[in-house]
């Protein structure tokens, strides 16, 4: 049974449809990310779970109880904001203990819980500091401790790392994930950063223009995108158009060259045009295994990125990029040279929709 459930959620601001028909079930203890470009409705959806926005239609349930009409302060949620939103007039300890004081917990319990949370977020020396005396990363840890101190049923984070430096971002995201695992708290994490979503989540909800594009594990989302949007938003991907030759055996022609998809082309008809995706790291300029797909073309461009060399190959009509490891003994190919690109049949992903 799902722990957190969104059923038929839509949200309109005036004429503008911001969230369209969202259904989502999240299991207890699961870490789910909402991933998508700015303005696609991630924050609005999160705010409907928190209770700051009321869905135009649909229901929200947490732990078997429908909460659609409950105010945020009755929902047992913890929320972390991009801007930290610490109370400037309170110390770190005051901030962390706020929710417990509001709930009128005994003073002794509050003191113990605050100390415990300070320990967990590794700031035991900072109890008496004020927010403005802390760095951004420290402030966000305090915000996290404050949200978790009241033992909420659900933790909601809205781009919590966006305002931080790249280095702190990486270390803090590992900390958040480890903490979430330890506490086993059901979590929704909003981000527009695909690396963040891929590295942290149990499951990712990819959103675009208020719609769910795909829901799946990071592995599924990255390797088997179902739509052109997911394919292009998550990682650098080659998208090619192909004409279906034989749906049953999975044969399809790209720029007149025949290749095969191991997963078949179920549901399409001969002569139809489908979009196929290829990851740069799946491609090779070596001949590869006998039953590999091969596409002939000429080298269009070579960019040296350090440990990786990115090569663009023109296939006539379209072009694909591929990555090869830099080796000091093997100079990169020259522009204009004829080459054959090979890849496994499993790596050819045929998208559901354009």
């Amino acid at each position, binding site marked *: 049974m799902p722990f957190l459930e969104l059923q038929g959620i839509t949200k309109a601001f005036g004429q503008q449809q911001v969230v369209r028909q969202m259904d989502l079930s999240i299991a207890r203890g699961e870490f789910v990310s909402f991933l998508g470009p700015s303005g696609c409705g991630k924050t609005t959806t999160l705010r409907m779970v928190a209770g*700051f926005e009321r869905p135009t239609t649909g229901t929200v349930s947490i732990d078997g109880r429908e909460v659609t009409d409950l105010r945020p302060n009755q929902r047992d949620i913890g929320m972390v904001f991009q801007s930290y939103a610490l*109370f400037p007039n309170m110390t770190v300890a005051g901030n962390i203990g706020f929710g417990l004081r509001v709930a009128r917990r005994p003073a002794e319990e509050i003191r113990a819980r605050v100390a415990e949370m300070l320990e967990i977020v590794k700031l035991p020396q900072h109890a008496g500091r004020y927010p403005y005396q802390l760095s951004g990363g420290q402030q966000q840890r305090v915000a996290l401790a404050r949200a978790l101190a009241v033992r909420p049923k659900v933790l909601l984070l809205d781009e919590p790392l966006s305002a931080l430096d790249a280095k702190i971002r990486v270390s803090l995201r590992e900390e958040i994930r480890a903490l979430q695992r330890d506490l086993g708290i059901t979590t929704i994490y909003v981000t527009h950063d695909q690396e963040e979503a891929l590295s942290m989540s149990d499951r990712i909800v990819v959103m675009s223009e208020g719609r769910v594009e795909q829901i799946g594990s990071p592995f599924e989302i990255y390797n088997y995108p179902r739509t052109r949007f997911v394919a292009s938003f998550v990682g650098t991907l080659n998208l090619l158009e192909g004409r279906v030759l034989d749906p049953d055996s999975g044969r399809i022609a790209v720029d007149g060259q025949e290749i095969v998809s191991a997963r078949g082309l179920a549901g399409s008809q001969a002569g139809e045009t489908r979009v196929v995706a290829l990851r740069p790291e799946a491609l090779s300029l070596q001949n590869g295994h006998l039953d590999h797909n091969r596409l002939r073309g000429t080298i269009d461009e070579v960019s040296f990125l350090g440990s990786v060399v990115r090569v663009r190959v023109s296939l006539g009509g379209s072009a694909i990029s591929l990555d090869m490891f830099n080796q000091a003994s093997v100079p990169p190919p020259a522009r204009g040279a004829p080459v054959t690109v090979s890849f496994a049949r499993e790596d050819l992903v045929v998208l559901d929709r354009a």
Partner: protein
Amino acid sequence: MKPNRIGPWIAIALGALYFLLPLIGTFEFSLRMRRGEYSFDAYQVVLADPRFQSSVAYSALLAVATIVIGILLILPTAYWIRLKLPRLAPVVEFITLMPLIIPPIVLVFGYLRFYNSSSFLPMTGNVRATDLLLTFGYVVLSLPYMYRAIDTGLRAIDVRTLTEAAESLGASRATILFRVILPNVRSAVLSGAFLTFAIVIGEFVLGSLLNRPVFASYMQLVGANRAYEPAALAIIAFVVTWGCMGLIQVFGRARYMARAEKG
């Protein structure tokens, strides 16, 4: 280069003279009660006058009541507008400016018409009710200053996110207002309070037309009948007013320093 510098200095000197000369003159005059030497006799007389003490106490009490009512009325209003109705902000701001546009004399005649002893709510018929009416009048008069001060304070913090953070932690609206918002706009509220205090202490029209023993009425009474004491009173009133301004500066500075440290 040089004449450019002298010009502004002359302007400043003239301005200072224009401002300070009457003050110095008044102060000097207030010290001349005793023949042939300077003394604080006039101040002693004034401070010992029971009517002075009672009028100051009365006005100060009304000022405090005005401040409390003003804060209780304006803080939640300004907060709600910032939070939920930001589009109404210009309208409300304009409304709060009305007391500056409409003279107090109009206000008081309006009151006398609406609340006279033969009206449906005869507030002027009873002393306590008149005090209440006077206090509400002061709340109206101080509205532009109080609203502006509080709104400026609210603008300096992220009202919406702080509210949502507190709400997600289980806080009710009242808790949020008094434990999260108010402490963070305290210095703004205080500066509004001192301004209000200065206004109420010096207000004459409302108090005298409603026939209540306010400080300004006492000043007017003494001014009409005595020579040196009015000068002493003027200096005392001046010191009180500027004391309030000084306190605003102090609290304004404290806030500024907290922000500067942060940035």
